[in-house]
């Protein structure tokens, strides 16, 4: 099953060498009177990891949901592998901020969810579920319910559910925003390890500058009201990224750079009063 998907994705990338996995052009989003973001242009390549960062309310999550096809853009265009995005589609999977696990399903049943909807056979599902649960380090917890396990384990489960459908694009909405700081670090490094094993295009939204620098190939900084792409920071840190990466002088430099870019905006956002 995996071999088939691999060949398919190879073929797609070969047939359109210059074509990015995701192309966002002049994207804008408006809720009634409020323009959330506008004129966003962004190409995301195969196996590229892109972090989207910006102050609260800048529309990071909204943009991610647009890429997933959950929300339609109000202007501009979004293409995935050359095709316009008109709704959620095969090949894209999302990891949710609050895990999005079904409390009435066990870990294994949650992981199997996407595969079941895709209509895979029972044997294929069982094999894939076991593999993904092993991959995220949840072996032995298959039959627990989400409310019986810790936040970190719940997000491992959410990650396994997304990986199970073998996405060519993995979207993550503040994936580690709802877990404690130590767990967050553990999960970051684990995700990096998993990505090294099976690199896919990854787009994630985060509030954490460190996380963006540690994981991303590029960091897209959104700013302004309505927000636009303020800067795209190239993260030229070597891979594989590991704990050691955090100690590199270049890491500190990049972190400071992003921090100073965001600082003024974050202060302004903090003192903003709703009108």
């Amino acid at each position, binding site marked *: 099953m995996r071999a088939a998907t691999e060949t398919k994705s190879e073929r797609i990338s070969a047939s359109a060498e210059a074509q990015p996995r995701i192309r966002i052009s002049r994207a804008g989003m408006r809720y009634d009177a409020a323009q959330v973001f506008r004129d966003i242009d962004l190409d995301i390549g195969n196996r590229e990891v892109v972090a989207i960062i910006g102050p609260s309310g800048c529309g990071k999550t909204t943009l991610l949901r647009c890429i997933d096809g*959950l929300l339609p853009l109000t202007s501009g265009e979004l293409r995935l592998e050359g095709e316009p995005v008109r709704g*959620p589609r095969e090949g894209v999977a999302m990891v*949710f*901020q609050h895990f999005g696990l079904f409390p009435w399903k066990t870990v294994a049943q949650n992981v199997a969810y996407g595969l079941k909807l895709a209509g895979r056979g029972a044997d294929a599902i069982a094999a894939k579920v076991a593999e993904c649960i092993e991959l995220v380090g949840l072996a032995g917890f298959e039959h627990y319910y989400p*409310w019986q396990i810790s936040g970190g384990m719940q997000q491992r489960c959410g990650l396994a559910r997304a990986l199970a459908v073998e996405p060519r694009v993995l979207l993550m909405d503040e994936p580690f925003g709802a877990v404690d700081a130590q767990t967050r670090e553990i999960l970051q490094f684990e995700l990096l390890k998993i990505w090294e094993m099976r690199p896919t295009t990854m787009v994630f939204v985060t509030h954490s500058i460190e996380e963006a620098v540690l994981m991303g190939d590029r960091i897209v900084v959104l700013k302004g009201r309505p927000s636009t792409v303020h800067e795209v920071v190239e993260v030229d840190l070597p891979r594989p990224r590991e704990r050691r990466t955090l100690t590199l002088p270049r890491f500190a430099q990049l972190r400071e750079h992003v921090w100073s870019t965001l600082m003024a905006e974050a202060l302004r956002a903090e003192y903003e009063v709703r009108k």
Partner: protein
Amino acid sequence: MRPQRTWLRRITIASSLVLGAVVWQVAGQFASDAFWAPLSATLASLVGVAKSGVLLRQALSSFELYLAGLAVAVAVGALLGMLLARVGWLRVALEDYIMMLYATPMVALIPFILSIMGFGFAPKVLVVFLFAVFPMLYNTIEGARSVRPELVEVARSFHSGEWRLWCDVMIPHTLPFMMTGLRQAIARGLVGMVAAEFFLSPSGLGQMIMMGSQNFDTAGMLAAILLIVLLGVGLMDLGRWLERRFAPWRAYQP
């Protein structure tokens, strides 16, 4: 709770029940037969009707009515509730009627039901239904509407169709709320049953109470009341058990 406390609790409950029985017995000895019967006479009367087969017949008749009304109420409440939760304009259109009927003491509608439907089995089922349907409907709507938007989004993100969304998300999420509705419907349905048996064609345990009262057979009347009380307690326990059984994840907040 520590074991001694549990024992203390049990002893207190037991003493309270025994004291209640004693008060009933003693009060019955002194009061006129027309108003009050001692516990012993009540129990004797209960054994009497049980032996003659009257009790079983009447209880079955009551239960038939109760279950028919409750079953229709649960089915209608659950299905209509899910539909209203998902179809916005229908909910907006019907919401006010539902609130009005929910707030109406159903007893007020019985003369009206009598005048249009007469004395058959059907109008009585309707009364039980009306008593029981609203808690079921109301809780189902509230439950289905309280589904976390993130979970609906998860389903959409994994390309779930509407039908799968119902099976995987809406129904499992709403089930515990339906059980709360069911518990309330169980209690209100019992009230409906007795009301229907009083005010429409007399039958079942309600008829036993009425006849006992009219014939100054106080012991017989109290026997039927006691039976309804015990039935109510049992059904409430069943309702609470169902509610717990279906909601291990109710408190889950990620």
